[in-house]
């Protein structure tokens, strides 16, 4: 094209010159635009190739999609699973004050005519841990036992070498319980029983618990459930590439029908620890029996289990103004474990005036926050700033390896200052390293004195990717003065340990925001705490009893909608004495005394104490120089109380009672010779339905089983089944090509074009000069 323009330019007519110049400019512009297009096009193309293939066909699930306990079999679609038909589910939940103990027993069947290796998946609530696992596969009984990590591994290796059925569960992902179940024979049933401990959720005077009951997406008719792949660290979100999903979706199960096929029984022993006002189950029909004013027994009405809703139970205290305290105890191995809790006033009017606040927001915009994290942090912080009242004062500090303080000192939160700060926050990008200490110092030390009657709060938004925890803890505990430090954990894998401990030392709370859609709800809860402090300076003493370990230590402040729960270990089986809890509501001192001997019996307190003790030990790791000692301490506590932790694992070993020779192998549906202490009765249950209906539902169950069997990748032998299972359980690989070469290539191309254009231009100028000179000479 340059050649053309050159020929045009060569025409020896002066008046055409501007026209030629225009042409040249146009040509250059076109070339430039084309180049940009080429670059743009390529980057788009690479984005497309990065995407995955169809992964979520209807009827296929991924472990992360699972909304309730499920046994997954590898399917014919690589990387996807199908759910084993669930024959029965029994749930028993004991509520003891703020403690929940849940026992789930489920019975599954391998509907195929081949061998298969399954994965049992159960989505756990936050802060809960499985401590018991019992399984029956065909006619073998397997029980999970807590062992030190190394020892568990040895047992596992030995059992495997001996050709026995075995499984190993180590703590890897905190809130999903997965366990491989090997060697399930044709048509065999599998019973899984797990027990876990968690705590009651509290919010604004309402206590609630939730049991996961959403049957996998395939039963959900309309919404296209978009899921993020199993691997939380890879960050690959796989988009839905199936345009005609509706057409290929599996037969949708009516919830009522589903209830017949997958019968669920659920019983809750609610022992609230305070007089119960109202009890509600918003999504399921239940029968509620009143035991006394503090206790209820709730059970599910049969046949009323919507498949698309988690079971939820909420209860409220009868109205009362004073914080209510409760005391429970449990005796284990000659020691008494106490659980005391203080519930803030159930009445909203109890906190009349909200004091002035002085808030320093600290936001981490280091490189580790890049992507979704910084977006969540910006949103959360903007929300927090917009909630300030004009009489509050605030400041914003941001840090990466540098740091800057937005206002020279605390400023009143007038609308324009708020706007200004929000604009500053919105403009933050994540880059650089993490130097948290100077920012923390700025927030704690350089913001001037606290005005009388005001509350100083430091809100820290970070993913906690730091190395100098000890220094930071030191800074917080030494310089926090009367300020309270609140930490907000951002992103899918924040350093919760650091942030929990930092909040504890700072007498604040830790809020975890895992995804974009949690920002509003979680920040809302935090605002409630920030704006409504209920009780401060809480101290616990035992009078006349020998308390060895009180957790948490130190006691955090008490906020509205949040109880303080303390656990303690006491010597002896029948301790006497008094437990004193003191605190301050505003300027009003408050004190409660409880008689230890009068504590009511509760279950699971020892485990809760142990879990908190382990958390405390882990949290204090920064102060312990010797990692081995710490590990030993944690191991001792975890082993004593049968908990999975960083240093202890559940290893499943065969505990099948030996069958007398000659006795026939019984039907797999009837558990013969259950090991002592095992209770699978509920999932074999009585046949509740009338004969006709039962037959119909059996037909349906059979139909469903056929569907599953059709999609399963069953194998003719056990060995082949384990190979198939391995193939399905794979690691996703990250993108490992940089664009460096591409940049260099395109850059060189651009340079070449520039050189070409420049020389053409030069040539043309030179010719023009010749022409002009020629013309002049002619004129002369």
């Amino acid at each position, binding site marked *: 094209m340059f050649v053309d323009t050159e020929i045009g330019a060569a025409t020896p007519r002066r008046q055409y010159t501007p026209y030629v*110049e225009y042409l040249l400019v146009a040509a250059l512009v076109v070339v*430039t635009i084309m180049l940009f297009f080429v670059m743009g096009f390529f980057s788009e*193309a690479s984005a497309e190739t990065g995407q995955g293939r169809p992964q979520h066909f209807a009827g296929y699930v991924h472990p992360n999609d699972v909304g309730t306990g499920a046994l997954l079999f590898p399917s014919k679609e690589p990387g996807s699973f199908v759910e084993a038909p669930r024959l029965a589910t029994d749930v028993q939940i004991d509520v003891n004050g703020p403690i929940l103990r849940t026992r789930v027993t489920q019975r599954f069947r391998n509907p195929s005519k081949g061998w298969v290796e399954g994965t049992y998946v159960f989505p756990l609530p936050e802060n809960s841990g499985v401590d018991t696992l019992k399984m029956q596969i065909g006619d073998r009984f397997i029980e999970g036992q807590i062992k030190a990590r190394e020892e568990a591994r040895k047992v596992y290796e030995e059992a495997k070498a001996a050709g026995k059925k075995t499984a190993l569960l180590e703590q890897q992902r905190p809130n999903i319980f997965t366990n*491989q179940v090997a060697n399930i024979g044709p048509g065999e049933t599998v019973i899984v029983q797990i027990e876990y401990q968690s705590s009651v959720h509290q919010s604004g005077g309402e206590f609630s618990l939730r049991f996961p009951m959403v049957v996998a997406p395939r039963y959900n008719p309309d919404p296209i459930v978009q899921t993020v792949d199993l691997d939380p660290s890879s960050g690959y979100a796989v988009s839905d590439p199936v345009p005609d999903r509706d057409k290929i979706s599996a037969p949708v199960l009516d919830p009522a029908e589903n209830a017949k096929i997958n019968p669920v029984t659920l019983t809750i022993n609610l022992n609230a620890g305070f007089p119960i006002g109202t009890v509600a189950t918003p999504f399921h029909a239940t029968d509620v029996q009143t035991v006394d004013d503090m206790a209820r027994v709730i059970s599910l009405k049969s046949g009323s289990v919507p498949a698309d809703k988690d079971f939820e139970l909420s209860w409220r205290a009868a109205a009362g103004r004073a914080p209510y305290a409760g005391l429970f105890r449990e005796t284990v191995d000659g020691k008494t474990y106490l659980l005391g809790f203080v519930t803030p006033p159930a009445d909203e009017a109890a906190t009349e005036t909200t004091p002035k606040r002085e808030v320093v927001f600290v936001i981490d915009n280091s490189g580790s926050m890049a992507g979704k994290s910084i977006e969540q942090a910006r949103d959360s912080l903007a929300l927090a700033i917009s909630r300030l009242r004009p009489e509050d004062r605030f400041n914003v500090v941001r840090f990466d390896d540098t740091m800057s303080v937005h206002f020279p000192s605390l400023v009143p939160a007038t609308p324009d200052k708020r706007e200004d700060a929000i604009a500053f926050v919105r403009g933050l990008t994540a880059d650089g390293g*993490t130097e948290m200490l100077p920012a923390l110092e700025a927030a704690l030390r350089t913001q001037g004195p606290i005005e009388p009657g005001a509350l100083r709060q430091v809100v820290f938004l970070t993913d906690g990717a730091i190395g100098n925890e000890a220094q930071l803890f030191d800074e917080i505990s030494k310089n926090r003065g009367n300020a309270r430090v609140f930490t907000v954990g951002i992103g899918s*894998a924040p350093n919760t340990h650091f942030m929990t401990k930092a909040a504890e030392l700072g007498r604040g709370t830790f809020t975890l925001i895992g995804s974009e859609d949690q920002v509003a709800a979680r920040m809302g809860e935090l605002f409630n705490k920030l704006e409504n402090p209920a009780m401060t300076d809480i101290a616990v003493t035992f009078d006349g009893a020998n308390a060895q370990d009180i957790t948490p230590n130190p006691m955090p402040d008490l906020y509205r909608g949040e109880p303080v729960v303390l656990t303690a270990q006491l010597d002896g089986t029948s301790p006497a004495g008094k437990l004193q809890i003191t605190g301050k509501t505003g300027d009003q001192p408050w004190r409660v005394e409880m008689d230890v001997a009068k504590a009511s019996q509760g279950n699971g307190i020892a485990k809760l104490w142990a879990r908190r003790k382990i958390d405390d030990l882990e949290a204090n790791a920064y102060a312990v120089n010797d990692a081995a000692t710490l590990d030993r301490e944690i191991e001792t506590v975890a082993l004593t109380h049968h908990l999975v932790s960083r240093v202890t694992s559940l290893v499943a070993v065969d505990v099948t009672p030996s069958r007398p020779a000659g006795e026939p192998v019984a039907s797999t549906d009837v558990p013969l010779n259950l090991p002592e202490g095992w209770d699978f009765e509920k999932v074999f249950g009585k046949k509740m339905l009338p004969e006709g209906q039962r037959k119909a539902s059996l037909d349906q169950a059979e139909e469903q089983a056929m569907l599953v069997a059709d999609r399963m990748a069953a194998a003719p032998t056990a060995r082949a089944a384990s190979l198939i299972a391995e193939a399905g359980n794979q690691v996703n*690989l990250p993108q*490992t090509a940089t*664009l460096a070469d591409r940049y260099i290539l395109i850059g060189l191309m651009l340079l070449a074009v520039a050189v070409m254009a420049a*020389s053409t231009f030069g040539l043309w100028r030179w010719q023009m000069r010749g022409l002009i000179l020629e013309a002049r000479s002619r004129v002369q």
Partner: protein
Amino acid sequence: MSNKQMLDGRGGFLARLNMLETLVLAGISLVAIAGLMLVGKGFYMKAKAEVSQVLLKRSFEAQLHGVPNVKPWPWADFSTEAEITAPRIGKTAIVLSGASGEALALGPARLANTPAPGELGTSVIAAHRDTHFRWLKDVKPGDLLVVTRKDGTNLTFRAGSSRIARWDESGINADAPGRNLALATCWPFDATEQGPLRYIVQAELVSDAPQSKLSALPRPVQLPVKSF
């Protein structure tokens, strides 16, 4: 532009251009600057990868010799995990933990959801094909790969087969029996696009080699620090 100055040879060249010509020149210089910037960015990425490895190596060695709290540079916010060496090819690299884009720009990284090398299961180390794992294509079956963990343990792996797979169909099971290592990088090696294919080298722990502390061993073959 230099051409023009050469052609013209005199000062005041710009002054004698009319407006259109100035525009044309400006356009050309814009294209040239964009080109320079892209080339610069490309080389910056490569330089970053090289320089960081030198610094990482230094801090990793300090860590091995028991210096606590070493950081490759003051604002680093990640940890070094191990050193991987391919003695036959004479390449070595410091492995970081957690394969985020950030870490991968600085060195190979062990995927966070796989066990540490030498632990039960399959440890997966990934790195960029155009920087740290450029040498992966030269690893042949039977080659030894030496991994020095941050606790000083020296582990020897023997490379097995290599294969090409999609990123989401790696076939690598982190919990597979045995103590295995998988090295992954992008494939094809010479492409300049980011594609879905990965090149995977499987390696098995050589069990008869005693797992010894680094301190008990004479220093391994002195290898070049440069590792690309």
